[in-house]
């Protein structure tokens, strides 16, 4: 029977497939399905901008309307990736400007974006609607002005945590008077004052505005003006939450909050003056998301606030909340799914707040829907971890940072192997894990054995030998991203598991024991990996082959070696012609085993 399924029907069917994984699977069925799928894929996700080139992408997917892309490795957030590493979006924008005239959405994370790029976006895409720049850098408010001025249908502009050179607040005034399409504006990362009248007018003329996140420079007194113009807001980020203590300011703010009946998310709260906290109480009953990481609110005030938010699903807070506050959270917020507790004083060895492992245990006991945790604390025990694991077997993301590197179980002085072992053994859906504290190879044995759904693992100051890394690489079937710092992992495990690396997005290793020789060998063995050595001591050739490299970033790619690297990064040659590649019989044997 001839193939009789009309393309149009198949295309319609495929349009219901949203996930990339499904679409990728579909495109492997046969060439005809591959062709149909590629013409109707409109949304692209590129997890590593260097894994593929703009040309390859455009050639395969001609009808793209939304692109999401990530650049720098995650450890760039903690200053481990030197300036100038890369992640430039300009080549992508140039290529897309020529080939995707209907592009509507660009979402970037950890990339370098210039004013030139922003200007090109503004002028190239007539239907441009959504710009999300998450932890990006390299642009100024001039670039934002260009976007504001030229994108007639702009719906979303979100600059979350980007480093923007703030030349002036006037960029906001570049939105034309007839711009009424804005749905979401997040300018919380900007430093300077924006023109307040321009902001008011903009907010007032955009009836669909749902998200408004101000920057610190917007004073509390101005809040009522804005909220009255946008009572339909769903997510609101205040500016500085402080003012002289005056009843008229207070009542204006309180009244403004009460007018916004749809509020579900609150953030901002810089420079909080506790007297003004009750002004937002009217919003609490409906609040599902609360971000207080810039708010130095002490525990008693936090307890009061949280007890008024029974529908809370997501809480980001500083450790001022203390164990007592977390107990109150556990008692009041039964819908809680995500908790992040950040350190108010991360560089102090001594605890400045009464926050211990007990707080997290309480939340794990009281909140049946808890699935995502990021917790900074100064002490932890195996017993606590085991309790948490048993309480919450449906945990999906678990990130624990004990402030002192290699801190043992504070009760028994043992490593925390069994505690984290319990986490991976009980939480079978775990997709992301970050560990800290004193950890031996044992914990990696547990991880390799149990963490079958784990996709991202972050390790620091842990392990004893290559066996640790070997357990992870050979056991974690779903592993996509692995980032390691300051662990005694070396050549053996890496080379023995070389093939695994092609099944992952990337591997980062810094301050470990991987030698330059092994890097070269790996690159020769695995031509579809880019093995990049980052070393600020000069070319690795100037040191013995056995000398460990400072930092190593390995990722799979179909784009070949990149061409935009700074002086202190070298991509290892993939050409296996060099007889020096095989440095010893032992190495050859290892490679044979892989």
């Amino acid at each position, binding site marked *: 029977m001839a193939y009789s399924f009309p393309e149009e029907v198949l295309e319609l069917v495929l349009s219901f497939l949203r996930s990339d994984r499904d679409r990728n699977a579909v495109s492997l069925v046969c060439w005809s399905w591959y062709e149909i799928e590629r013409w109707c894929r409109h949304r692209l996700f590129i997890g590593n901008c260097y894994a593929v080139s703009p040309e390859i992408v455009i050639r395969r997917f001609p009808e793209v309307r939304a692109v999401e892309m990530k650049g720098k490795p995650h450890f760039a957030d903690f200053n481990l990736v030197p300036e100038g590493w890369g992640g430039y979006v300009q080549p992508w924008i140039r290529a897309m400007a020529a080939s995707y005239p209907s592009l509507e959405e660009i979402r970037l994370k950890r990339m370098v974006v210039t004013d030139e790029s922003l200007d090109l976006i503004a002028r190239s895409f007539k239907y441009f609607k959504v710009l999300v720049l998450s932890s990006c850098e390299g642009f100024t408010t001039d670039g934002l002005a260009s976007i504001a001025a030229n994108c007639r249908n702009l719906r979303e502009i979100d600059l979350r945590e980007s480093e923007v050179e703030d030349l002036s607040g006037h960029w906001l005034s570049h939105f034309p008077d007839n711009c009424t399409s804005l749905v979401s504006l997040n300018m919380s990362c900007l430093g300077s004052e924006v023109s307040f009248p321009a902001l008011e007018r903009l907010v007032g003329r955009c009836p669909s505005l749902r998200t408004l996140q101000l920057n610190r420079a917007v004073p509390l007194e101005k809040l009522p003006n804005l909220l009255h113009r946008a009572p339909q807001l769903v997510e609101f980020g205040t500016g500085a939450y402080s003012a002289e203590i005056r009843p008229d300011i207070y009542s204006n703010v309180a009244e403004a909050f009460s007018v916004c009946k749809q509020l579900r998310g609150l953030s901002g709260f810089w420079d909080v003056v506790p007297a003004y906290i009750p002004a937002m109480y009217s919003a609490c009953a409906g609040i599902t998301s609360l971000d207080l990481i810039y708010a130095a609110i002490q525990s008693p005030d936090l307890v009061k606030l949280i007890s008024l938010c029974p529908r809370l699903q997501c809480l980001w807070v500083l450790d001022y909340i203390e164990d007592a506050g977390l107990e109150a959270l556990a008692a009041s917020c039964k819908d809680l799914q995500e908790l992040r507790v950040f350190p108010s004083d991360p560089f102090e060895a001594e605890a400045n707040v009464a926050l211990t492992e007990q707080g997290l245990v309480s939340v794990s006991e009281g909140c049946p829907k808890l699935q995502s945790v990021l917790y900074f604390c100064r002490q932890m025990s195996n017993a606590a971890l085991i309790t948490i694991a048993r309480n919450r077997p449906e945990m999906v993301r678990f990130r624990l940072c004990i402030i002192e590197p*290699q801190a043992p179980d504070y009760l028994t002085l043992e490593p925390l192997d069994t505690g984290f072992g319990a986490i991976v053994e009980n939480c079978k859906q775990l997709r992301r894990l970050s560990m800290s504290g004193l950890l031996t190879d044992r914990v990696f044995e547990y991880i390799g054995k149990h963490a079958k759904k784990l996709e991202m693992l972050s390790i620091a100051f842990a392990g004893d030998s290559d066996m640790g890394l070997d357990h992870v690489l050979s056991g974690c079937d779903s592993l996509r991203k692995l980032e390691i710092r300051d662990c005694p992992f070396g050549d053996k495990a890496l080379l023995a598991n070389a093939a695994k690396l092609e099944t992952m997005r990337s591997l980062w290793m810094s301050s470990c024991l991987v030698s330059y020789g092994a890097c070269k060998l790996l690159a020769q063995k695995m031509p579809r990996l880019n093995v990049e050595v980052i070393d600020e001591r000069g070319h690795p050739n*100037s040191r013995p082959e056995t000398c460990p490299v400072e930092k190593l970033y390995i990722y799979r790619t179909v784009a070949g070696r990149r061409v935009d690297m700074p002086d202190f990064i070298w991509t290892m040659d993939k050409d296996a012609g060099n007889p020096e590649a095989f440095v010893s019989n032992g190495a050859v044997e290892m490679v044979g085993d892989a």
Partner: protein
Amino acid sequence: MEIGMNFKETELCLGLPGGGGDISKTSGKRGFAETVDLKLNLLHSDDSDLKENVDNSSSAAGEAVPLKDPVKPPAKAQVVGWPPVRSFRKNVMAKQKSEEATAAFVKVSMDGAPYLRKVDLRMYQSYKELSDALAKMFSSFTMGKYGSQGMIDFMNEGKLMDLLNSSEYVPSYEDKDGDWMLVGDVPWEMFVESCKRLRIMKGSEAIGLAPRAVEKCKSRC
């Protein structure tokens, strides 16, 4: 030559946990190869045990940066990137602590060096400490000619002009007004408040800054 298997060979480049080249399996807390970024480690004033770790064969190619022998870090030493708090948040949260020392991260570049660094100015109490740290970060930068205060002597115009005519490196900074100034012309605290970024440049290039610097200095004196 084997790769990676012979830890004795790598010992010269890298201080291993526990020292002495053997990986000891202990159940208690052990020393770890400390990865304090040496260039920022102000407290390690004694360089002698560092020198033992330097790989001799690499000295020809320039300064190798060995990792320190395992030692428990003193309380104030900062390990780079630990705890893993995003620098964006660090800077923002820090700004809020009105009274105390908060982070003041600024970029530092040196003409001719391949990469920028970032330093937290509040980690230092004086120009001398800053210049020591800069010297560790950028090996070709020394402030030997600057005298005991570790800063440019603005009082002595002759000396200042000599310095600016030389090929010595001088540190300059961009202040809040966007002007580029020579480092050292204002009291330390004021400098920390107003410095937005640092650039270490050749004295001869800094000559353009001098008239303004000298003027600003004169008006202050």
